[in-house]
């Protein structure tokens, strides 16, 4: 019970730190959102009312010190002039901030709330990322084990060279090449734009699948390389370790040696990567979604960065941070399940 409490306290502290870093980073950015609000998209420019500008700044607390802005941002009390009575507001809008589940509204589209928007975008990014992670594990684990068991074979050498190549190829370059090669101006095998073609307004899983192929390949190939390399190293290490030799000496069947002793143990480091693969994929989605024009969170984050939508960027950073923390927790759990020292008691 105590350890549980301690753990959750620590997790809360980490979360707070995460929010603080995201917040400070974004408030330090140049480009005043108030100014931005009153800029048009076209080069057509007109005089903005200075009064409206001042009002906007005070509504969004942009004229207050940084720590007040942070508290306002964190919530659950709204500190703006319309905020909670207790804190000197008018009381028309008492709650707000992250703790009230409120990530604010976009500056430029005041009718868009950020929290649902990010969730919506996430519903595009997350399936892609999960599929890529699945693909990566499904390919990389057997590959790594195979390589590790057949070290120095021709297969090992060639497949290692290939994974090394994949490890080193920059994702945007691969994406551009694939677009050129397989897109309509090349072999015309696969669509390269968005997730839907115009002829498939709804349903149409085949269409969706065809659109998702290239993004998933681009997202996953680097992870395949990393995981298989890790898996190979782990397999090789365990295969030559004393307890495997001992098991073989005891006359345990080879198949059992491989599955029970080697693979299971080699999976332990691979599970630690579960927590890391998801953040890589989410990070990679910034590039992949931009290149393939997929309206997911990565593209949203980049566009928000370019438009100086501080609150939206902060929301993306925080959401991905929380997902990463969850991934790390998951890999902890998996590890404690798989670790023979925990399970078997002794080796």
């Amino acid at each position, binding site marked *: 019970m105590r350890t549980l409490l301690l753990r959750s306290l620590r997790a809360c502290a980490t979360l707070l730190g995460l929010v603080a870093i995201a917040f400070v980073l974004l408030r330090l950015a140049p480009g005043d959102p108030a*100014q931005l609000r009153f*800029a048009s998209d*076209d080069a057509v*420019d007109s*005089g903005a009312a*200075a009064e409206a500008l001042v*009002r906007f700044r005070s509504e969004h607390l942009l004229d207050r010190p940084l720590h007040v802005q942070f508290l306002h941002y964190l919530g659950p009390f709204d500190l703006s002039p319309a905020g909670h009575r207790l804190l000197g507001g008018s009381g028309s809008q008492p709650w707000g901030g992250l703790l009230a589940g409120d990530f604010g509204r976009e500056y430029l589209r005041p*009718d868009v709330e950020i929290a649902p928007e990010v969730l919506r975008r996430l519903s595009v990014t997350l399936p892609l990322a999960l599929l890529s992670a699945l693909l990566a594990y499904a390919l990389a684990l057997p590959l790594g084990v195979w390589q590790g068991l057949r070290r120095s074979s021709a297969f090992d050498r060639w497949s290692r060279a290939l994974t090394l190549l994949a490890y080193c190829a920059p994702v945007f370059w691969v994406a551009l090449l694939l677009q050129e090669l397989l897109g309509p101006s090349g072999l015309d095998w696969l669509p390269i734009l968005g997730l839907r073609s115009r002829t498939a307004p709804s349903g149409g899983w085949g269409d969706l699948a065809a659109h998702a192929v290239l993004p998933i390949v681009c997202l996953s190939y680097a992870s395949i390389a990393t995981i298989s390399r890790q898996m190979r190293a782990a397999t090789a290490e365990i295969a030559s370790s004393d307890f495997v030799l001992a098991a073989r000496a005891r006359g345990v069947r080879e198949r059992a040696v491989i599955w029970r002793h080697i693979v299971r143990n080699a999976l332990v480091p691979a599970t630690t990567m579960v927590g890391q693969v998801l953040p890589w994929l989410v990070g990679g989605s910034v590039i992949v979604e931009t290149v393939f024009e997929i309206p997911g969170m990565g593209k949203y984050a980049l566009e928000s960065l370019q438009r100086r939508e501080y609150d939206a960027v902060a929301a993306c950073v925080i959401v991905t941070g929380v997902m990463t923390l969850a991934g790390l927790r998951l890999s902890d759990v998996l590890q404690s399940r798989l670790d023979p020292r925990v399970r078997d008691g002794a080796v």
Partner: protein
Amino acid sequence: MALPWASSCSPSEPATESSPPRTSGNAALDATAPDRFRPDFDPRRDALPAPRRGGKVVIHVEALPRQLNYLLDNSGVTRRILQELHGTLLERDLFTGVHRPLLADSWVVEDTLVLRDERRLYGELVEQGERWLVVPRSTPSHELSAAVEVPKADVARIERGTVYTFRLRSGIHWHDGAPLRPEDFLLTWRLARIPQVRCDEKRFEFEHIVHAEKLDERSLRFFYDRQYFGAAAVFGALTPLPTHIYDLRAPQHPNARPEATDEELARYVNEHPANRNWIGVGPYRLVEFSDEYVEAERVDMGWPSQDGGWFDSIRWRLITDDALAYRALCAGEIDFTTRLLSDDFFRANSDREFTSRAYVGHFYTPRASYIGWNLRRPQLADARVRTALALATDWDGLVQSFYRGLAQRVTAEWFDGGLDYDRELAPLPFDVERARALLAEAGWYDRDGDGFVDRDGKPLSIEILTQAGSRAGEVFLQRYQETLAQAGVRLDIGAVAWPVLIERVREREFDGVYKVWVVPIQSDPAQRWHSREVGTGSANETSFSAPDVDRLIDVSASELDDARRGAMCRELQRRLYAEQAYNYGVKVPHRFGASLRLRNVRVGPVDPGFRVREWYFVD
């Protein structure tokens, strides 16, 4: 109204006018001809197939609108989409720019006669010897039922073209079924007067409408406070807003609260969900606004067939990367784009993937690139220095390589086909030697031998801002950096995000800024050049001020005669070009690609250059 630019309608394009018809496309045709760029079609020989209803057209947009309320979001994308989803009182003809009624059925323009006791009479003014005859033209409920005569001695001043009475087309309905009413137009005007409503980009348009009133269920009247050449354009662009949705205080509103304050109303309007889920009066009704596209379908809300649209639905598809738009056109994902990259545009005709599905063409709307100098910077305050900077600009090289001859040099930012543009004024040549000589004349020598000229111990070093990712800007400035260095001027390229650029220009924290200026076909130079617009945040970004220019602007603004106003504007143009507060660049082409399935595609100079509702599929 005379059409100043009708006589020179093809926007001055000598290269194509004199050349024989090309093997592909019919660019040499009359610019107003439909499908004139289509390779297999010659409108002089072939007849257009008969229009048919049906099909879904997909049109490329480079960004999705923030929202679709024209009052709150004045971006080009919003304008393009609203053109089909919504309507204005008047519409400009695509080629001539002449106003024709759209939501209005007819309209009457009258003059104001101000008496010495500040009483105002309006009606058509006819001069009769020592008297003015005021003849009421518009009905109903005109103050004057018959013509009156006023002795000239009693008249303080006359203001022509200041009272507009519109009669609405009957049978137009909002997409939710409510009828279009005069209140809807008045609402736009009233909202624009509330400072809390976020419409700063539109507000100035309405600031001279001093009064507006509803006359009956189909008529409304606006009063302009002064004689102004562009008054018709202000009313022409006036879009209605649905009173029963936006006006919290109106009895038509389902939850009407007549006591709501301006502030509450403004907040209600600013954050109203209908800003995205737009309810308009156009022939197309919004059905979906997603992260990838905006889609609308045709509804019958009382539009006559030529304005009612032929496609069953229109989708505006977001593709941020223009290079991908070309491929999307090849793949048949989109039917129309105006943003083909130069390389793609020129390789299109030899790309079988492309020619089997689409064709390319180009047109111009009034938009020109330029560098605006900050005249508050001491080194840029001297016109000789600015002229030298212009002489060291290789615009011609840019036209030939980057635009491959599709762009033309301009000497003013406004439309170059009108009477107010002096086409005789030759742009400055690219001449580094002369630039150096001019700099020396202004006292700039390379005193310390570092390759850059200097004066008072400071090198001539400027930073030019451009929007990061703007291809044309980045290409141009990198070339400019080299040619300026040859003239001994150091250039730093400030490729910054658009919001940062806007902020720095507003705060006047810049040396130069590269932009593309999109102007209406009939534009008022006052915003850019009048000294009353000097000051942080206002539109005269160069801080240019000269009394004679102010006078020219003021006089020309109230001149209603096109020929006389044109002459003044041309003088203004020559004056401004000599000042070189802007380093004027080129008229930027729209390079479009269109699917072969589209028919009746006409492209012209009035923004946005095409009308989707005229097009149709034949298959």
